[in-house]
């Protein structure tokens, strides 16, 4: 029965490994959950780095409440089923607060576990509006604005700034893109100043979008709003231009990515995409980037500044609350302003950060430029 012994051995080892942190010195346990491996690791790893850097800095200054901060990373690969595993693990390891999760779906899956354990969760990247607006999760906070704010900005920009009334709204059928598109549609219709002439999902990975493009032409749209990510956006923009249609193309954060410009090439010129406000002039932002370059020898990736800000806000709240009691931490988050890498923020009743928001960018000469 070699197999049986092997199991016992593995189990024993696992116990030994798991037990170690529990007997370590008394620390503030700071959980970090997100995609640290798999397809979406590039979205999750920067957050883990941010947490480590902030913890290092805080620890160097004597820690929080006189205790050292210990970062516990947990991988969820952005998959709901793994997210619940990760959350369970963090809860059982005694995390006081958790930074994460990265993807909205994973966050939704994990939230009930944190809620039950009464642990504060702060995401740097989960933008799904329902997470805060449903009111189901008083323990959830985020340092990034939600999709509806983005859609609001996109709609106002298209109608007021560009002066376009007939708008074709497209999405990629994904959680993020469809959410954005549905909000955009709702805002256009509520505003009464424009009309949605086309609301359509495109199939990611399809070989050709010419039918959708012809449909846009046929609808008489004056502008296109697209919710989704850059691969589909670049295909649609390229086909629009190929078919000699010069409509303004307004999209979201998923498109405000340098890969979009790389892939779409000259067709990318003039495309609008909304994204977090440019904070590159803030001293804390510069400090955060420098710390990352110094430690890891490279520029940080996506959601780094949001994660850095969230780490600062969480640790600050623990310090201000004077305890690790989550009710007090939440109260501190809601009442105390804190300087972070995304600006001076505090959180509203529902958990959204006040003071962060979106700007519109446009591709000019192969670069995204913020429009003031």
């Amino acid at each position: 029965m070699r197999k049986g012994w092997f199991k016992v051995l593995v189990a024993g080892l696992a116990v030994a490994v798991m037990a170690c942190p529990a007997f370590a010195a008394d620390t503030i346990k700071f959980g970090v959950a997100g995609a640290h491996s798999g397809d979406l690791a590039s979205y999750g790893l920067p957050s883990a780095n941010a947490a480590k850097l902030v913890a290092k800095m805080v620890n160097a200054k004597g820690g929080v409440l006189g205790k050292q901060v210990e970062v516990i990373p947990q991988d969820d690969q952005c998959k709901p089923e793994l997210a619940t595993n990760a959350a369970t693990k963090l809860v059982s390891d005694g995390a006081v607060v958790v930074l994460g999760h990265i993807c909205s779906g994973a966050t939704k899956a994990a939230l009930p576990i944190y809620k039950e354990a009464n642990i504060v969760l702060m995401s740097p990247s989960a933008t799904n509006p329902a997470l805060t607006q449903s009111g189901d999760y008083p323990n959830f906070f985020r340092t990034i604005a939600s999709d509806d704010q983005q859609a609001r900005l996109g709609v106002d920009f298209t109608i007021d700034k560009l002066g376009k009334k007939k708008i074709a709204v497209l999405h990629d059928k994904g959680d993020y893109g469809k959410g954005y598109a549905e909000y955009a549609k709702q805002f256009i219709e509520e505003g009464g100043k424009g009309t949605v002439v086309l609301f359509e999902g495109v199939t990611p990975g399809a070989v050709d979008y010419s039918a959708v493009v012809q449909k846009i032409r046929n609808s008489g749209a004056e502008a296109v709003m697209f919710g989704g990510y850059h691969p589909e956006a670049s295909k649609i923009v390229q086909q629009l231009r190929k078919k000699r249609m010069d409509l303004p193309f307004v999209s979201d954060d998923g498109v405000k990515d340098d890969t979009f410009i790389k892939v779409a090439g000259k067709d990318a010129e003039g495309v609008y995409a909304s994204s977090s406000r440019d904070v590159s002039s803030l001293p804390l932002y510069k400090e955060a980037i420098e710390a990352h370059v110094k430690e890891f020898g490279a520029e940080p990736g996506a959601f780094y500044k949001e994660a850095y800000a969230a780490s600062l806000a969480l640790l600050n709240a623990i310090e201000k609350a004077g305890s690790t009691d989550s009710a007090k931490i939440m109260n501190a988050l809601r009442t105390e302003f804190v300087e972070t890498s995304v600006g001076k923020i505090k959180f509203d009743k529902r958990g959204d950060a006040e003071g962060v928001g979106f700007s519109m960018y446009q591709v000019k000469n192969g670069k995204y430029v913020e429009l003031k």
Partner: protein
Amino acid sequence: MQGLKKSILVSLWFMFLTFPLMVIRIDSLNGTIDWRWENMLGMGAGSFVLSFVWRFMMARKEAGRAAAAGGVMSARGAWFERLRSDPKAAVPALAVILAVFLVLPWLVSTYQTNIMISALLYVMLGLGLNIVVGLSGQLVLGYVAFYAVGAYSYAILNSNFGLGFWSVLPIGGAMAALFGILLGFPVLRLRGDYLAIVTLGFGEIIRLVLENWSDFSQGPSGIANIDRPGLFGTQLSVSDATTYIYYLILAAVIVTIVAVTRLKNSRIGRAWQALREDEIACQAMGIDITTTKLTAFALGACWAGFAGVIFAAKTTFINPASFTFLESAMVLAMVVLGGMGSVIGVSVGALVLILLPEYLRAFSEYRMLIFGATMVLMMVFRPQGLVSPGRTKYNVPDAEGAGAAAARPAAGGNA
């Protein structure tokens, strides 16, 4: 010498074949080419060695086939067969395994238990698919659709009507079985490859509907806040609930193993196997292949439905992204790797495929590569899987075997 020459040729061929992808990397932003010659060397050396291994394995396979034709059984197979067929060895072995599984949650952390729950869920899925693919020989590539039906049944009934886990468990199974029959009817006349593709299409259709029909399934954003299974109305903490679900799924797996073994050794199970072996002869022996196929589809789907309900209850959140074709391929790989038709094999296959990557995180990048390669190599070198299906023992009324036969339980089978 001959072999050496062959291997050099193979190695040169692979160096040529993989040259553009492995060696050249274009950095289009800076307009430079990154030449990675070390990869070519690695490829050459690797394929040189592997070609020897390949030929050795091929020769062994040929030898094995010759031996099997002569009725000789390999020594390694023999001890395993003995362990399996001799109740004196098999019973304690089973008891030890069961005991390990029973105490597991008390030995390991909640996290490890959670992983074990996932692994056991896959055992259940694998055994369910084994009914359809392994026993009745109908290649279904969209199995995960039934898993989705079960999961969404619970999610929707729970969030809209507040139905609990225990009342939805049979409903979820029944719904999945219904879908199995719905799929089964039109594809009755299809065979082999065509069946595989149609079921793949069916699986994708189910997923696409879940993704696009937002009013019904909340679309890509999924359904959150699904209740965990309750225990006589008490509200359990997360870690207790995990332990509870662990025992629940363990019980479900044991029930599945018993059920599948019994089905396999029953009149129905024999009909499935006959269907797998020869459809025409099966009909000519008075077996109605319509009902036989439909029962296989329905029962296989039903198990996926049960697993789906448990899955939804365990994660408390589901979205269509959990039910992609890759998931179906994964479950199929478990069945194939473990050994089609073998209950032990499929269980081992599922545990290996889920747990190994979990404990070999270092290889996570290569996980899917190895996974694909394993599927190919398994088919080439050991198409019967890790464990070939056990022979059912029958209690025949004959003089020479009568004494021993009487002592054994009647028509007892083993997996």
